[in-house]
Structures are given as structure tokens and as C-alpha cells.
């Protein structure tokens, strides 16, 4: 029974995608929507059943088909079900099902609905292949597959040049990450002689002292491999340095942002680090790097979020910042907390994006918060749901009871402190700071969008309307998740039940067990992030409701710094200058100088000039030289053969 269940859960969305993608025009819009939604919904139900099975200790590892086989290298297509993949399957398929339903309403005006639904389902399939991969290679397959779907969906409205730019950027920045991921895979095979997780994890402890040489420098092998793999994670999860694609990815339709760029694909990097925890645990240098990058991203993204006016971009920066939390949790060996936050974040961030989509839909495509205001009367249900999402995001709660984010974020910060190292303290400070900023930009977004007086001309609001039930209904399960998922699942991810729950799916060295040590963190330090969150919320109320003139005063007072943050620390401009233009110039130079001037100049063209007379004759003969050549060849062969004949 379990056998057919996991295969069905993974492949049903694929069937839906094929039906809608290849036969969409024949079966029509309605039918395409029905098939894809039905398949993904079934997958979601099956995922929940699989998760229930896993809770009872049922794990499995199915081989479907041989894939790559070469010498000692072998990688099969397969489905690995353990606690980690089951949690991910539930998150992916449940959110995906909701987004599928929501898309029926959101894309109702679009002319290529079957294509959209097919892409969404195909994405779901690739994501499922990623999380159930039994080896690094299939993980890479899913990894590239979701990247491809992200590319196609960001550029879904392909007439828009900005969407095309954004989609290419997403793919290429991710390719830079993949560069590292691939090298990490090569390194793994060199070290472990296998790409399957089982043998890799088994051998990891023996490899702790091995070294590897790159360009004359010796590195600890496991640290090098983990850093290379993490480079892939940085690309996919938009961490500092490889983050520039995520805000631009908001060019895609909003359901895509919710599913791919908030709840699932961007968390693949976190998943990968958790999956590889048995290797990362023996690479302390890599773990420290993960923690620092996560901590920095967390504050960096939140600070940009404070200054943006596009409603989707604010949420995008918030996503990046929350991914930072997940990474530094992993960096302090609190993988369980990291996946916990991944799960709660999937619910509340998908909810937020879909609510933002509902607002944008209501305003016929407007995304600039400066043109909104006073919307709570017009879209009251969306407004209420969005509050739930934001309270969860800000991690609001009192005395042990709160929204989902309250549990997971606090667990992460406690673990950082509990680790007891300088890096742990450092990321705790960054995380607490980001918690303050998170609450501030959340409040800012809510107040600017829904409160005060409408700032835009009246006519835009005349058509504004609350979304239909098909868009609102899928938000309800997500909202329930955003409220309750944290409290209900806390015991499994953060409590004493967690060892039994994970059942070996993640691995933490006893001396790294920051979650156990977290229990000894002082109560004031434990309460600090929540207090900061309340403070941030209050401050945003002061800035955007009580004293609306404050923001302008502050931004002028810190003019230069404000512009620096507002322009996203000039990362995009810098990359564009160095890499994009650099590569084109280099390409042009190689072509004109290298190929035309040097190689041809010294080679055939130079030869031609030296023997211009012959060249003239050749060109005068038009195509006659071919026969010449053939004739000369035959003559040559004959001559040589004859020569050997008489002298041999």
C-alpha cells in the first residue's frame, strides 16, 4: 500500500501537468483546471497519509529505475520517504493545492490558463522529486527542474520585457549557485565513492580529517564540499550575494510568488542543508559560514524591506529575511528548528502573498502601496486574513501562546544562544534586530495598504471589490496553519518528542545539540525578540497611523543611508557592471580579437595573404577547387602507394 502511495503522491501532479500542458487546447480551460487541481489535491491528501505513516515509524526507500551508471558511480531514480521528506511533501503539496485552487480565480482573465496550470503542476512534481530524492543527483534534477519552472513562471507574461529580464536573471543567478552545487556533488563522489545518501552519511565521520586541493591550496575536504553545496543553496534560497533575483521574481503572477518564491522552492536550500546534516555536522567551518550568511541575510533583507513601496517586494524581502533565520538555525545545528520555521513560514507566507494577490486583483493590478490606503472597508475578509499572516510573521504571542511564527522563530533564536559560541551570540543579536524590523515593515505594509485615507484617485477604487470565494476559500486552511501549526507541532520539532519524531532523518552531534541547551537560556533573553516585535509593531503604528509625517522626516534625516538601503545596497548595479557587461565585452573581444585577428590572422587568413595569387585562383574557380582537392588527394594516395610498391 505504502508503495503505491508515495509514487502516486509524486507523479500525480506530473500527470496533471501532461494533461493540461499537451492537451490543454483540446480539453479546454475548465477541464485543464479540474485535472490539475484534482491531481494536486489528491497528492496533498496522500502526503498527509504518508506523514501519518511516518509518525508511526514507516520509512521507505523505493528504487524506480536505473538512471546513471558509470564505473563506481550509480544513481537511480527513486523515492525516499522519511520524516524530513514527509514533512516537505505535506508542505509542498498542501500549499500547492491551495495555490492551484486560488489560481482558478486569480487567472480568470488570462488567455493561457492551461499553460499556467500545467506549469504549476509540473513545478509541484519537480519539487516532490527534489524532496524525496534518495541521492544527490536526483536532488539536483529536482533542483534544476524547479529552477526551470520558476524561470518559466516568472516570465509567464512573456510580452513584458521586465518579466523576461527577471526570469533570465533568476535562472542565471541560480546557475551560479548550481556551479557550486555540481562541484559539491563531484567532491562528494570523490570522497565517498557514492552519491546515495546512505553510504555518504555512513562514511562522513571517517572523512572529517581528509583534505582536498584546489589551485594549490589545501582545504579540509568536508568543509570544502559542504561550502560548495551551500553555494547552491545560497542561489536557490536567495542568500546574501546570490539574492538579487528574488525581488525581481515578483514580476511573475502572484500565485507563483506564493508557491515558488515563498513557500516551497526557495526553501529547497534549507532542506538540502538539513538533508545533508550528517555531513555538515563534521564540517564546523561550513556550519559557521552558513550561520553567518543566514544571520547577515536576515538583517540585510529586513532592512531593505523597510524602504520598499511595492507590496509584493516587501513580502519578497521578508521571505529572504525569514530564509536567513532558517539558515542560521541550521548553522547552529538546530536543523529541527530550521525545518519547523520552514513549515510555519510556508503557511503564513503563502497566506500573505495570496492576500496581497487578492488586494492587487481588487485594484486591477496596482502594486504600489503609496497608491493604496483605506482598503479595509473594501476588502474586509482579505484584511482580516492578512492580519493573521502578519501576526504569524512577526512572531507575536504572549506567555507561551501565540501565532505559528512565534514558536518557530523563538526556538531558532534560543538555539542560537544555546549553542554558546561567539557566532551563536552574533546571529542571535542579528536575529533579534531582524525581529524588530520584521514587525515594523509588517505593520507598515498593513497600515499603508488598509488604513488611513485612500491616496489614489477615486476611480481606481470604484472597481475595487472583494475577491470571489474561489480565491478566499483556499486562504482559510493556510490561515488556520498560520495560527495553529506552531503550537500543535512544537512538541515534535522543539520538544522532547523530537528525537523519536525525526527518527534519524536529521543528524546532530551530541556536542552540537543547541536545541537541548536552549532550554537553559535566561528568560529575559528568551522574551527579548517578542518584546522587540511588539515594539516594532507599535513604532510602525506611530509612523504610519498616528504621525504620518514621520517617515518623510526620518528618510530626509538619514538621506544618504536611506538611499543606499533603498537602492538595495547597489548589489544589482554592481553585478550588472561587473558580470553582465563584463561577460559581453569579453565575449566580443574574444571574437573580434581572438578569433578574427589573432587565430585567423596568423592562421588561414595570414596564409592567404602570403599566397594571394593562389587564393585568387581558388576564388576565381568558384567551386572547382573541390574537384581539385579530390583529385589531388587521389593522386597523392596513388603516388604514395606506388612509391611503396616499388620500394617495398
Amino acid at each position: 500500500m505504502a508503495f503505491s502511495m508515495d509514487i502516486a503522491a509524486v507523479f500525480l501532479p506530473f500527470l496533471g501537468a501532461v494533461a493540461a500542458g499537451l492537451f490543454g487546447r483540446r480539453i479546454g480551460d475548465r477541464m485543464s483546471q479540474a485535472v490539475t487541481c484534482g491531481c494536486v489535491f489528491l497528492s496533498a491528501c496522500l502526503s498527509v497519509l504518508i506523514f501519518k505513516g511516518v509518525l508511526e515509524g514507516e520509512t521507505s526507500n523505493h528504487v524506480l529505475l536505473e538512471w546513471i551508471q558509470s564505473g563506481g558511480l550509480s544513481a537511480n531514480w527513486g523515492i525516499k520517504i522519511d520524516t524530513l521528506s514527509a514533512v516537505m511533501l505535506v508542505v509542498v503539496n498542501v500549499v500547492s493545492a491551495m495555490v492551484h485552487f486560488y489560481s482558478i480565480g486569480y487567472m480568470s482573465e488570462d488567455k493561457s490558463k492551461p499553460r499556467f496550470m500545467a506549469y504549476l503542476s509540473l513545478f509541484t512534481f519537480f519539487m516532490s522529486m527534489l524532496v524525496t530524492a534518495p541521492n544527490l543527483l536526483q536532488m539536483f534534477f529536482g533542483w534544476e527542474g524547479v529552477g526551470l519552472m520558476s524561470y518559466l513562471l516568472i516570465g509567464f507574461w512573456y510580452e513584458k520585457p521586465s518579466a523576461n529580464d527577471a526570469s533570465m536573471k533568476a535562472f542565471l543567478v541560480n546557475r551560479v549557485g548550481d556551479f557550486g552545487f555540481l562541484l559539491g556533488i563531484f567532491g562528494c563522489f570523490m570522497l565517498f565513492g557514492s552519491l546515495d545518501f546512505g553510504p555518504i552519511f555512513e562514511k562522513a565521520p571517517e572523512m572529517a580529517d581528509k583534505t582536498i586541493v584546489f589551485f594549490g591550496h589545501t582545504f579540509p575536504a568536508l568543509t570544502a564540499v559542504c561550502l560548495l553545496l551551500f553555494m547552491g543553496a545560497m542561489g536557490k534560497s536567495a542568500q546574501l550575494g546570490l539574492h538579487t533575483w528574488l525581488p525581481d521574481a515578483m514580476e511573475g503572477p502572484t500565485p507563483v510568488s506564493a508557491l515558488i518564491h515563498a513557500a516551497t522552492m526557495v526553501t529547497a536550500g534549507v532542506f538540502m542543508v538539513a538533508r545533508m546534516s550528517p555531513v555538515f555536522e563534521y564540517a564546523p567551518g561550513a556550519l559557521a559560514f552558513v550561520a553567518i550568511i543566514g544571520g547577515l541575510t536576515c538583517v540585510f533583507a529586513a532592512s531593505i524591506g523597510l524602504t520598499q513601496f511595492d507590496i509584493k517586494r516587501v513580502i519578497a524581502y521578508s521571505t529572504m529575511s525569514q530564509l536567513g533565520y532558517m539558515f542560521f538555525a541550521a548553522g547552529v545545528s538546530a536543523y529541527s528548528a530550521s525545518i519547523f520555521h520552514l513549515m510555519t513560514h510556508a503557511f503564513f507566507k503563502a497566506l500573505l502573498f495570496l492576500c496581497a494577490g487578492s488586494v492587487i486583483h481588487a485594484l486591477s493590478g496596482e502594486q504600489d502601496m503609496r497608491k493604496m490606503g483605506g482598503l479595509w472597508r473594501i476588502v474586509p475578509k482579505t484584511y482580516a486574513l492578512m492580519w493573521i499572516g502578519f501576526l504569524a510573521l512577526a512572531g507575536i504571542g504572549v506567555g507561551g501562546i501565540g501565532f505559528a511564527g512565534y514558536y518557530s522563530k523563538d526556538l531558532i533564536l534560543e538555539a542560537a544562544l544555546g549553542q554558546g559560541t561567539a557566532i551563536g551570540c552574533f546571529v542571535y543579536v542579528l536575529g533579534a534586530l531582524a525581529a524588530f524590523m520584521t514587525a515594523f515593515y509588517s505593520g507598515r505594509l498593513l497600515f499603508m495598504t488598509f488604513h488611513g485615507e485612500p491616496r489614489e484617485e477615486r476611480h481606481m477604487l470604484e472597481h475595487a471589490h472583494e475577491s470571489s470565494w474561489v480565491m478566499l476559500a483556499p486562504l482559510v486552511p493556510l490561515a488556520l496553519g498560520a495560527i495553529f501549526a506552531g503550537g500543535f507541532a512544537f512538541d515534535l520539532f522543539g520538544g522532547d518528542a523530537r528525537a523519536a519524531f525525526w527518527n534519524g532523518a536529521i543528524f546532530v552531534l551530541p556536542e552540537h545539540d543547541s536545541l537541548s541547551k536552549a532550554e537553559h537560556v535566561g528568560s529575559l533573553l528568551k522574551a527579548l525578540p517578542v518584546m522587540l516585535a511588539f515594539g516594532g509593531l507599535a513604532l510602525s503604528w506611530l509612523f504610519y497611523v498616528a504621525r504620518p509625517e514621520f517617515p518623510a522626516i526620518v528618510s530626509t534625516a538619514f538621506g544618504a543611508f536611506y538611499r543606499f538601503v533603498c537602492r538595495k545596497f547597489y548589489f544589482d548595479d554592481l553585478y550588472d557592471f561587473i558580470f553582465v557587461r563584463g561577460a559581453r565585452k569579453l565575449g566580443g573581444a574574444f571574437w573580434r580579437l581572438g578569433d578574427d585577428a589573432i587565430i585567423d590572422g596568423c592562421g588561414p587568413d595570414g596564409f592567404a595573404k602570403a599566397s594571394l595569387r593562389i587564393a585568387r585562383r581558388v576564388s576565381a574557380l568558384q567551386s572547382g577547387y573541390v574537384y581539385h582537392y579530390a583529385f589531388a588527394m587521389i593522386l597523392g594516395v596513388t603516388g604514395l602507394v606506388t612509391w611503396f610498391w616499388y620500394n617495398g
Partner: protein
Amino acid sequence: MNGFPILSALTFLPLIGAFAILLLARGSEEAKAKLSQRLALLFSLATLGLAFTMFGAFDPADPGFQMKERHVWIEAFNIAYLNGVDGISVWFVMISALLTPIAILSAIGSIKKRVKEFMVALLVLETMMLGTFTALDLVLFYVFFEGVLIPMFLIIGVWGGEKRTYAAYKFFLYTLLGSVLMLVAIFAMSALAGTTDMTALIGEKFPRHMALWLWLAFFASFAVKTPMWPFHTWLPYAHVEAPTAGSVILAGVLLKMGGYGFIRIAIQMLPEASAYFAPFVVVLSLVAIVYTSLVALAQTDMKKLIAYSSVAHMGFVTLGLFSFTRQGFDGAMMVMLSHTFVAAALFLLVGVVYDRMHTREIARFGGMAANMPRYAAVFMVIMLAAIGLPGTSGFIGEFLSMQGAFLANPNYAVVAALGIIFGAAYMLWLYRRLFYGPLDKSDVRAMKDLTPREIVMFAPLVLLVLWIGIYPSAFRNVFALPMERALVPFDAQVHEAQNG
């Protein structure tokens, strides 16, 4: 198969077809064209049928040469008409037999003048290609190897574009250099070993200094053919000027003759010299991968862009081969198979719009996703294979080749992996300019989507690209044993890890 000379039948059936066309196609220009097209298609399909029969009789469990035929040719020098296939060459026979009918199908739509002669040239070309890959005597190999050039010259020179003379002369100079040296090497080998039987030459020990010179002479020929940087500058011109069918065969089969030569002659007959020169070849391969990918980024002509991308892909072939690892060897073969289908499909795809608009200037197109959705979809699948997305054929080869290089020296793979970034950059940039954006050019808007004939052309290529990507073992199992055997002389210097 007992006694039936299937390889000779296979090799010369297209030539018989060419004679049949010469004799039978008469009458008005139109009738001549029609009949020669039909005959060419018929003969090439019959050849494909024979090739499948041969493939069915082929035993992958035998690492040696099979279906050998031997007839004395020039007794005094021990030169024989000797042919046979092993698990390596059998694939090259298959791709030659498969691509020829596809090239003929494409020519039916696009070649309008001297149709009869064109069909004859294509069929003669097929015989030469099949002969190259089945020949087991060096002199015979040489005759076919060079014989390929004659019909190819004609195809570029007669049916080519405006600058065909320049293109053909460049092709001529480069290949002349290579083939003269190769001929000298062949006779030197024959003098040293007393035979030109390739099966005997594999395993023959040559004096070290001679082996090095011989290797260099063969290298000159194969490096031009592959082509390796910096011997690649003939390729963009040849492709740009060649008609679509010519480009398909050139990229699909002719370039592989270089890779095949490296395996069969450089590596199998001169292993020590190959090991000696390996760093040199690897460096050229790495330069090719990075350099030509960047050059491809700067191109404004579709065919030139794809031609440069071919050079980069062939860089993965030589990189994998000269890493002397199992993964590298398998990877090189997989890259060659994949590139055959991908490059052929890409040139056909360019041909589709060239037939309609008579330009290959990228800037003249845009927004075609809207009016040519099927074309856009096929292009997307092939593009994904070209950039090596897992699940397509492109990934398997590049992955294995780089894995092999990593085992030989991690730095090789670091440089080669840069290619996957640049490769994605130039292909996505091309796709974006062709298919996305507003559909605002009236001549582009007037174009029709793929015709049934074109769909028939692309269907096998798309299927193969996905099949190799998902289940490469079906292909690898055939060449695994001979490749393994080719690696034996290098085992001493190879990591233990990958033999597991």
C-alpha cells in the same frame, strides 16, 4: 547474419541510391526533383532499416569487433578491405543512418535548385560517413575520412550562402593541414608495424619518440575536425554558409569523426603518447569551453551562435576523454551522442525560420512564442538539453565528463563548470530574443507554426533527447565494455575511486 556482409551492404546502399538517382531521375526539372527526393528518402530509410537490423544482431556483451569482413586489397602492403563495428562505432553508424533521412526531409523543404545533385551528394556523404565508422583498416579509414570532405565541400560550395567561397577555402586549408599529416602518420605506422589493420594496431607498441610524433600528426587532423580551440575558426563560417541539411550532418556526424578518431586512434593505439599530451589537450578543452561560450554570447547570427556552442560542447568530449577515467570516457561518448541530436535539432530549428524569413539575424525575430507555440515548445526542449538540464541528454554527458575531470584534477572541473553558467546565458539570451517580447514585426507575425513534415523531423530528436536523459543506460550499456577496455592501459595512473 551468417555470412551476409551487412556492414558493406549498409555502407554502400546509399551509394547505390545515388547512382539510382543519377540514372532514373530524368525529365522536367520538377519531375526530376520529385523523383530524386523520393528515391533519396527511400534509400536512406532502407539504410536506416539495415542499420537497425545490424544493431539488433550486435552483441553488447562482446567488447571486441563484430560482423567483420575482410578482403585482400593491396596484398604487398598488407592493406585490406576490412570492416567491423564495436560498441563504440556502432553508435556512430546509428547516428549517421538516422540523421541522413532527417537531413533529406529538411532539404525537401528548403533546397530548390539542383535538387537531384543535392540528393546525390547527401547519399554519397552517407556512404562516406558509414565507411569511416566501420573501416578497420587505416588506409580504408583514411579514404572514407577524407572522402567525406568532397560531398561536404560541394554542399557548402554549390548550395551555400553568399560567402561560401571564403568558408569553403577556410575549411579546405584547415583540413588539408590535418589530413596531410595524418596520411604521413598512417604510412609511418604501417612501416613500423607492418600492417594497417586497426585491430592489430590497437595494442601495438611503438617506440616512444615515434609514438609522440605519430600522436601529434593524428592530433592535427582530429583537432581540426572536432574542432578544438584554436583550430575551430573554420566551423562558424562553414555552418553559416552551409544549407540546413549540410549543417545538420556537419554538426551531427562530421564533428564526431574527430572524437571517434581520438578514441580509436589516439587513445587506443597510442595510449602512452595520449597520457603524455593529456594536460595539453585538457587545457585546450577548458579554453574551448569558456572562450567559445563567451564568444557565443556576442553573436548576432543564430547559426554562428550555435556553431560556437558546438565548439564548447566538443570541449567536454575531449575533456572527458583525456581525464582517463571511467566517468570521463562514458561522459565523452554521451556528450557526442547528445550533441548529435541537440545540434542537429538546433540547426533544423534555425532552418525552419530561415525557410520562412530568409534571415538568421537574431534581431529580426521576436515574440514567436505567441504565433508559433509548437515551434517554441520544441525549441525549449532542445535548448534545455543544450544547457544540460538534468532529465535531458545534455546533462548526462556533461555531468559524467566533468565528474571524470574532477577525479583527475578538481581544478579541471572548476573551470569546466563555468561553462554551465555561460552556456545557460547565451542560450537563454537567444531564446529570449527569438520568442519573448511583443510580436510586433509583421513578417514574423505572418509565419506559420511547424508543418507535419517538420514535426516528423523533430519528433525522433526530441524523443531521443529525453530518452537519453531519463534512461541513459540503454545507450551506455552498448559502449561500456569497449570503453572500459580502452581505459585499461591508463589504469595505473587513474584514481581507484571511480572503479569501485
